[in-house]
């Protein structure tokens, strides 16, 4: 029989719920504490996964997930730093889906021997035919072109020798050919046959289905996905490498301050994108571990080559002398960065820091500016990505410095989408921006940034001598003396031109609870959560 709702009963029931909610505040952390004793890794990520399509590099969160649910033939090797932390080893390769690999002497043939027991989450085999179909999907779907730029323009260059042996015939040698064709996002193995079942006339590659559904090939499979809130993953029952973790929970916590405090309280074990300003404090927090890695994420001041006075070498030198390098390091990055002295970032193979003589010297800057014949009261509008503290603060400090030379900077704040569009359309005269290569190689950086048709040659740099050298470096063998000399000469020329003003290269600060083990730092900073465990 239904109970009559009286005022007294209503009040008591309401108080009961409120009381229960308050008690839950105490209870739930206890439950969370208990959960820590299991191998359940809770990770605070900044936003939800936009898609399960692995070919679109739409954000770090997608890449974190990609590494969990899609396997790749290989991964970077790992080495230990003196402090015990782990970092990638550019000189070694870890076998993942592949059990072995060979690269021919002319570097145009890569052969993989796959593990014989590899399976997708639905039990289908991941054999060489599945690998070929996956690569063919990437080569066919619109908007995907990574394999092409790495020397693999079409699927007919993939030769299936037998169930476990597959050969990639590249159309030219590429210095990072092995990494580019077996480790980056386009080498993520999707179940292409299953995806293609959902193809339609409008969507011939079934990409829309793959946005929200998939058949996993990686070490973990999606258990639940509450859109905008969290995703829970459990080990793939068919994984060829057993995982220590029993469950991974990726919890969306969009506010960086909130990510910090939930980590401090121990409600998550690992948090991404913690603000640099919080790092010093977090180092002092008991139970929290902060590991800083010198990265290849360079910050630059770019200037267009398409119009005066920016294309005047004296003006460019004046800018190089006027940058407040030390202040940028101490104020913007709080000391968590290092000086850059070249047109390619630090901490990558081929970097040479010998051709950048510029320090902060306003007297020299004034002399150069006088020779550039810049009109008095020269003003320039600089787009700034609102919300990125490095961009905003660095531009403000540069504005203050240039004001002493009589140059007025007007900051125009805008969302990242707008700034990136303006940069790509080459409509910006001057701006601070950053760029991180996924392959720690100077030739790779040159390919994307310094050639006439490079996608992010935002400033229209054009010097045939340097660019010929850049082209050559792309195809030369990594580590060869010829390539080293070529890259050195390239940097000498471009730095002489003041192609860009290198401001600093930031550290990547990784923050986690002390009991988290097995974190390895990779050049793209995407953590491989499947390798981690709780001590």
């Amino acid at each position, binding site marked *: 029989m239904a109970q009559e709702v009286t005022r007294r009963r209503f009040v008591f029931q309401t108080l009961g719920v409120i009381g229960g909610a308050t008690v839950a505040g105490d209870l739930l952390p206890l439950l969370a504490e208990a959960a820590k004793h299991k191998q359940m890794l809770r990770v605070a990520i900044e936003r939800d996964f936009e898609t399960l399509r692995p070919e679109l590099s739409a954000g770090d969160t997608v890449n974190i997930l990609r590494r969990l649910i899609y396997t790749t033939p290989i991964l970077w090797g790992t080495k230990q730093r003196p402090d015990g932390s782990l970092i990638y080893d550019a000189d070694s390769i870890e076998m993942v889906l592949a059990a072995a690999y060979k690269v021919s002497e002319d570097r145009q043939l890569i052969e993989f021997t796959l593990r014989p027991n590899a399976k997708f989450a639905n039990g289908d085999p991941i054999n060489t035919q599945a690998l070929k179909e996956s690569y063919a999907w990437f080569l066919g779907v619109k908007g995907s072109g990574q394999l092409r730029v790495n020397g693999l323009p079409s699927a007919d260059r993939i030769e299936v020798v037998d169930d476990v042996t597959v050969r990639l015939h590249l159309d030219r040698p590429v210095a990072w050919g092995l990494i580019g064709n077996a480790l980056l996002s386009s080498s993520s193995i999707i179940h292409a046959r299953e995806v293609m079942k959902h193809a339609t006339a409008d969507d011939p590659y079934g990409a829309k289905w793959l946005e929200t559904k998939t058949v996993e090939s990686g070490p973990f499979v999606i258990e639940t996905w509450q859109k905008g809130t969290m995703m829970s993953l459990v080990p793939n029952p068919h994984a060829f490498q057993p995982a220590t973790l029993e469950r991974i929970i990726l919890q969306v*916590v969009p506010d960086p301050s909130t990510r910090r405090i939930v980590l401090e309280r121990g409600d998550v074990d690992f948090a991404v994108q913690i603000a640099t300003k919080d790092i010093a404090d977090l180092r002092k927090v008991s139970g929290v571990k902060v590991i800083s890695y010198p990265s290849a994420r360079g910050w630059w001041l770019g200037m267009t080559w398409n119009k005066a006075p920016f294309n005047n070498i004296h003006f460019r030198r004046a800018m190089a002398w006027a940058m407040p390098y030390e202040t940028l390091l101490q104020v913007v990055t709080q000391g968590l960065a290092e000086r850059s002295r070249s047109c390619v970032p630090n901490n990558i193979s081929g970097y040479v820091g010998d051709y950048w003589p510029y320090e902060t010297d306003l007297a020299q800057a004034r002399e150069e500016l006088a020779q550039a014949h810049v009109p008095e009261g020269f003003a320039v509008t600089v787009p700034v990505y609102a919300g990125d503290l490095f961009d905003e603060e660095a531009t403000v400090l540069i504005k203050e410095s240039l004001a002493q030379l009589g140059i007025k900077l007007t900051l125009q704040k805008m969302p990242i989408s707008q700034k990136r569009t303006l940069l790509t359309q080459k409509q910006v005269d001057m701006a601070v921006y950053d760029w991180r290569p996924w392959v720690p190689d100077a030739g790779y950086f040159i390919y994307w940034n310094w050639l006439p048709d490079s996608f992010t040659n935002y400033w229209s740099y054009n010097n045939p001598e340097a660019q010929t050298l850049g082209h050559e470096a792309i195809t030369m063998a990594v580590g060869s003396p010829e390539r080293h000399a070529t890259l050195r000469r390239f940097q000498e020329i471009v730095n002489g031109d003041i192609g860009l003003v290198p401001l600093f290269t930031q550290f990547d600060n990784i923050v986690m609870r002390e009991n988290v083990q097995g974190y390895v730092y990779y050049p793209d900073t995407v953590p491989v959560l499947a390798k981690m465990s709780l001590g």
Partner: protein
Amino acid sequence: MGLFSHAARRLVLIMPTLLGASFMIFVLTMLIPGDPALMRLGNFATAEQLRQLREEMGLTKPLHTRYVLYLSGLLRGDMGRSWRTGNLVLDDLRVRLPVSLELGMCSMLLAIALGIPVGVWGAASKDSLIDYGGKVYGILGVAMPLFWGGLVLVYVFYFKLGIAPPPTGRIDMLVSPPKHLTGSYLLDSLLTGDMEALVSSAAHLVLPVITLAFVTGASIARMTYTSMRRVLASQFIVVGHAYGVSPRAIVYKFALKNALMPVVTLIGLQVGFLIGGVVLVEVVFSLPGIGRYAVESLLVNDFAPVQGFVLLVLVVYLLVNLLVDLLYGVLNPQVRHG
């Protein structure tokens, strides 16, 4: 004119408003600079890839063609597809709207429960401590930024005292959400008798609701106070006093009813704000509501969700406005519709 015919006429008038609004929303979002295809591809792309993706996303079609497609989609109940989530916008909004509704409605109930008594008591006891306290609350509530208020509550009650759950969404990571019936975790867990989910989801709502109710309640308190003061100075109240009507009856029986109309108008406006405009609270407490959905989409030039969100909030505003109009007639029979 009767109540129902008035409501029907207003509902019909909503249609041309929505048509005009759809055009404005479409044009305004198209004016936002930035290339969605570029955002989707990231830094590692080629000019050819960019061209292909722009084509795939329909960005190469002329503006008027895109508007016609958008409008014909709307007429079929299709608000387009979000490239960011890969879902139909309608589906995304359907998932996220209950989050915002639950938060907004709970906050509004608490704000009313807080604001009206504070305003009434303050007005009824002028120059007393209650009056001053109410005024201080009114100023604090209106001046306090929502974002800051939320952070302070999190810091004190979660971080320092440890009595609130982590601000990581609607329910604890270790608790399964209740079976989906309405999308509101509170209602669904009550309806399904899932006490664990009820306790966890209620606990996760406490701080965001207090944050919002504190601010919204202050506006209501100020409006109630002003309106009550005006009514309490009216002739009929003076006559009531002269006839020996008890002060309690004068305040609660006669004055309050007459003072409520502007308060109801304000509450109507605040409902729209609470459902769509609480992005910062959703960010601080990691709540996946429609406000956060719209802002995150806007930042990466994913226009369809932004258009869908604005249209939805507009519909909510129009309907709440209509409801408020109808309530006028209920609260004060002197008000005639027509």
